[in-house]
């Protein structure tokens, strides 16, 4: 039994738009699992299906099941799923702009029953992100993009999740900051034992930190494997890593004017 298991799930928006078409994936406890894919492949929908956030978007899981620690969770309301230990860090940071940094962290701890441990946990978040400590009383809306992403991850830590769903943490950040954020994601995984399901556009980055990877297209998983297997796959190289089949960086002077066919589509 895997820690998290999605079996043939189907998600439909507005009763008509089929977005996930029988998607299956698994995550073992303590792993970092990467979920890669182009825009519109259904990555965010997959995360929202797990965390129960489809409802406000008028989406629903119509087939298949999602098992977390062996129990079905796809019909539970979002707040119950958070209580069971799953926390989604949404795309685009989504900090509460008019709240201070500290209030944002407290909002993350909303479902916690052990009130006396919240202060120590906040200190722990500050050791991961010292910059947040300096800005603890500032309004979150005025933080820089990188600091907001740190706050979004710190806010998730406050809920003490056992499974963290990260939706494009690198979005819109400078390369150095991206590296800093990813280092911390790995540290959180090691030190807290948090299982991480990571959605990324930046395939190279994600495969460097992950234990296992899935590639999705059009609402299905088309390829899966260890990061090494994926990195050596010719299609992945061509379409996700920007390398030619032999592994050299692609030169745009020699760009082919025909498209390589994706083998997995056959």
């Amino acid at each position, binding site marked *: 039994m895997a820690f998290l298991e999605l079996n043939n799930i189907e998600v439909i928006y507005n009763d008509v738009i089929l977005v996930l078409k029988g998607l299956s994936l698994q995550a073992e406890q303590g792993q970092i699992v990467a979920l890669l894919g182009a825009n519109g492949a259904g990555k965010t929908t997959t995360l929202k299906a797990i*965390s129960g*956030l489809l409802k*406000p978007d008028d989406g629903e899981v119509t087939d298949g099941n999602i098992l977390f620690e062996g129990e079905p969770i796809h019909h539970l*309301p*979002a*707040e119950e*799923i*958070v*209580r069971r230990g799953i*926390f*989604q860090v*949404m795309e685009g940071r*989504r*900090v*509460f*702009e*008019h*709240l201070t940094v500290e*209030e*944002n962290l*407290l*909002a*993350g701890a*909303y*479902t916690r029953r052990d009130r006396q441990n919240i202060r120590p946990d906040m200190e722990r978040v500050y050791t991961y992100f010292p910059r947040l400590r300096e800005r603890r009383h500032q*309004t979150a*809306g*005025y*933080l*820089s*993009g990188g600091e907001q992403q740190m706050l979004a991850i710190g*806010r998730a830590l406050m*809920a003490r999740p056992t499974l963290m769903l990260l939706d494009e943490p690198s979005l819109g950040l400078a390369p150095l900051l991206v590296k800093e954020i990813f280092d911390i994601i790995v540290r959180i995984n090691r030190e807290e034992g948090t299982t991480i399901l990571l959605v990324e556009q930046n395939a190279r980055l994600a495969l460097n930190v992950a234990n296992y990877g899935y590639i999705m297209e059009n609402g299905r998983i088309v390829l899966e494997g260890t990061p090494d297997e994926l990195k050596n796959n010719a299609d992945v190289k061509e379409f996700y890593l920007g390398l030619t089949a032999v592994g050299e960086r692609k030169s745009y002077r020699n760009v082919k004017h025909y498209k390589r066919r994706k083998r997995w589509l056959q």
Partner: protein
Amino acid sequence: MDKFLQLTITGLSMGMIYALVALGFVVIYKSSDVINFAQGEMLMFGAYLTFAFVVQFGLPWTIGVLLTLITAAFLGVLAETFVLRPLIGEPIISMIMATIGLSSVLRAIINAVWGPVPRQFPGFIPTDVIQIGGAAIGLDRLIAIGVALIFLVAFTLFFRYTREGIAMRAIADDQQAALSMGISIKRVFAIAWGIAGISAAVAGIILANIVGVSGDIGILGLRVFPVVILGGLDSIPGAIIGGIIIGLLEFYTGGYIGEGLNLIVPFIVLIVVLMVRPYGLFGKEIIERV
């Protein structure tokens, strides 16, 4: 000078009543974007409940007021659960229309139970007149200011520091993100309506003590619109300061310029504010990072 002091105190007490009603209004708008047209009727209901508990059931006023606050909170939650919750996800205009319906229902219930004849409110708040520097000021006015101040401070502290208060402000900022931290939107909406019920009832009791219990006091619900527009629809400090400004303005114009004009002035302010600063004095600014 004496006249000024007298007008200031009476204006302030009226302003505090406005502030309380406006607070309930803002809390609902802030968390759910709904404009509650039944706020005035909720205030009326509070006044009638106290009348019923103290005069009709003969309970001591302390217990009567306490029961009123509990019932008012319960009534607010009830209204949210049965009238507004089924409409979550529907256009906001349907919810606003539902609050207009709610106001009619409340008014009809009050009419059916207590009839249309104005009643004498139980005089448990002393109405002695005291002299402050030559101005004659009713003790009930001062008590009204004190009581309202206590409730306003308590509500402000609630929003700033408690778990539910932070959750309410989080929902006002980003509903879906709040949902992703396990904050229950239904629960927060229910709390918002409960708070609106309590603050309206407190205002109702204070007001009824001054002018008596009748169907007329519900009109205050509409006179609070200039207050919230001035302060900013989504600002709690704005509701308080807006209430005080409008209250003072009404009594100064009534006292110095002419009786009757005081009823118009708040709405002139409303129009000016909408033209110059449509989000109000303290309304939420859109944060833009540069």
